[in-house]
């Protein structure tokens, strides 16, 4: 090789190692985003639990939660050791400061408001936000389309149909569980329908899937409209509020269900992170790289449908979280799904909590539907993102 050629190669190698060292640093610092997002989540959580008609300081919140945990978990083997370790922390200097900070009184009213009303609500918000954001990220990956969100595969419209059916026809067979069960089952059924229509010869065509989702959602929207013509004014009010979403009135036993489905769902999606990366290259390319494309896509579609379905069932339709959060994370940390998915979960949870805080406090004593807040913030933000991207790189690709 000629001398200039050799110099060029050397320079390129140096540049490459710089890039790969940079990558290693950012992977080493790869824990920083998680720490940051976790801190954001904890802050949003404490603020959201503390702020309201009855205001409670963060240290009081911690004390209340610790007391209830202690009461509930005493029977658990090993809990004594945890408490013991916790109290021993108090002997170290920062621990002493912590102990002083946590030596606060809590009124009975504060305790009741936090434990029975706000905590379930806030936990529901965090879990729903995480599930919606991860679902959105996964669907954008499967469809290789930055516009995909959980509404696209029919789960939202299906859930709406189920919910409206339960409300308008006054179905109460399952007591307070009637509406959520109807919404969840209908959401999954409609997703299955969309999937079956798009499936042909054992393969699903992505564009057909998208269009089938759009078409079926339209038909179902019409069905919802038909049902509403038979509704009373009170029912129409209920339907309207349901379609705008709300975390109010969440009960502890609802949390467990949503949390379980969401935790399993997020774990399954994160496990497919590498497959999602390869799917972004293209369906054929992913297969050439050893991905069971059909199996992965089916798994992810129904996992996201279940996650979205269960959160929509209990909180109503909360828009834009699934669309915007993945874009935010991608803008910040790049498109690698192995990092995108867990970060989207944390950020989705935090942002939904912040949105909930805004919805509860901005027009006190009234409460805005949370869907209104997420769309009101999410919509303009998304537009800004679009315009910025167009200016910077002449388009979304």
């Amino acid at each position: 090789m000629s001398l200039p050629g050799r110099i060029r190669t050397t320079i390129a190698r140096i540049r490459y190692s710089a890039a790969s060292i940079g990558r290693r640093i950012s992977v080493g610092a790869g824990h920083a985003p998680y720490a940051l997002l976790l801190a954001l989540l904890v802050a949003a959580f404490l603020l959201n639990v503390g702020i309201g008609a009855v205001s409670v300081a963060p240290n009081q919140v911690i004390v209340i939660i610790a007391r209830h945990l202690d009461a509930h978990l005493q029977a658990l083997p090993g809990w004594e050791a945890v408490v013991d370790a916790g109290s021993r922390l108090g002997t170290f200097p920062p621990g002493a400061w912590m102990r002083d900070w946590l030596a606060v009184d809590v009124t009975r009213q504060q305790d009741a408001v936090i434990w029975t009303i706000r905590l379930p609500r806030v936990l529901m918000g965090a879990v729903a936000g995480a599930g919606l954001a991860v679902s959105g990220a996964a669907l954008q990956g499967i469809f290789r389309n930055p516009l995909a969100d959980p509404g696209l595969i029919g789960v939202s419209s299906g859930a709406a149909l189920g919910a409206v059916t339960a409300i308008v026809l006054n179905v109460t067979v399952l007591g307070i569980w009637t509406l959520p069960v109807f919404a969840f089952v209908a959401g999954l059924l409609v997703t299955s329908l969309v999937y079956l229509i798009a499936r042909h010869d054992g393969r699903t065509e992505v564009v057909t899937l998208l269009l089938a989702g759009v078409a079926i959602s339209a038909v179902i929207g019409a069905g919802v409209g038909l049902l509403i013509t038979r509704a009373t004014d009170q029912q129409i009010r209920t339907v309207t509020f349901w379609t705008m979403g709300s975390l109010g009135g969440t009960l502890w036993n609802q949390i467990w269900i949503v949390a379980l489905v969401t935790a399993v769902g997020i774990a399954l999606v994160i496990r497919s992170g590498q497959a999602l990366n390869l799917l972004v290259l293209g369906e054929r390319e992913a297969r050439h790289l050893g991905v069971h494309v059909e199996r992965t896509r089916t798994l992810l579609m129904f996992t996201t449908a279940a996650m979205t379905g269960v959160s929509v069932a209990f909180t109503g339709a909360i828009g834009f979280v699934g669309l915007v959060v993945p874009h935010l994370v991608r803008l910040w940390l790049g498109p690698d799904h192995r990092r995108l998915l867990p970060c989207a979960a944390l950020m989705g949870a935090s942002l939904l909590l912040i949105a909930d805080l805004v919805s509860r406090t901005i027009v006190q004593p009234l409460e805005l539907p949370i869907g209104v807040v997420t769309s009101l913030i999410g919509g303009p933000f998304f537009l800004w993102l679009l315009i910025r991207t167009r200016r910077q790189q002449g388009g979304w690709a």
Partner: protein
Amino acid sequence: MSAAETAIAIQALAVRRGGRDLLADVTLAIPAGEVVALVGPNGAGKSTLMAAIAGDLAPSAGSIQLHGRALEAWSPGELARIRAVLPQQTILQFGFTSREVVAMGRAPLPPEDRRQDDDAIAFALSETEALHLAARRFPTLSGGEQTRVSLARVLAQETRIVLLDEPTAALDIRHQQLVMQRARSLAARGMTVVAILHDLNLAMTYADRIAVLAHGALRACGSPWEVAVEGLLADVFRCPVAIARHPVLDRPLVIPLGELDVPVPADVVPAESGAG
């Protein structure tokens, strides 16, 4: 050459789609360690043949074996460890860096090989003169740069069979030569390369064997000098050509005569069997 193992054995392959024969009765044996060029006019079935070898579409009749084992017997994961495919174009919706794209080629490898990822990725990128693009975002690269990064991804996969669909279409002449030389060095290490090429002279210069396809059938298959027959090429491509000798290498050159309306000469050679 007769001692070499058959890497790809295609037997009486037919592909029918929508009532049309895309491929009919193609029989071709490709020994390991060869560079084979697939040439032919648009719509001749080159991409269909490659897709069939890649396992993207199921044949209507006939069979394909890779290293002695029927194609459908390989799982996707196993296939990914034995054959890599360079598509004509890769469209990425999200801004992965070139390095990340090449790293995707390592995904099918077993964990013990993944430990060499950093070296393998750097080597693959330098092989295609794309090392300086490592930190750039793939969607912001030019078409030719994207091809070179994608080729690095294919090289990083370290498979025994490499399928290239028009690898040189978007490249300048230096990088056309570079890509074909990489194909040659893969073959020298015992790998098998199948490339769809529109540039007949690249095929003549670098291939061990050239398969000429027309109307879904194999018209000829042989060494460059064997298929460099004016009548055959003029007939297949409906474009009169002259054959010359490369000024340096002992390889044929195909020169279009610049006229399209002249009648095609009649001395068209009959189709040969492709079995090597």
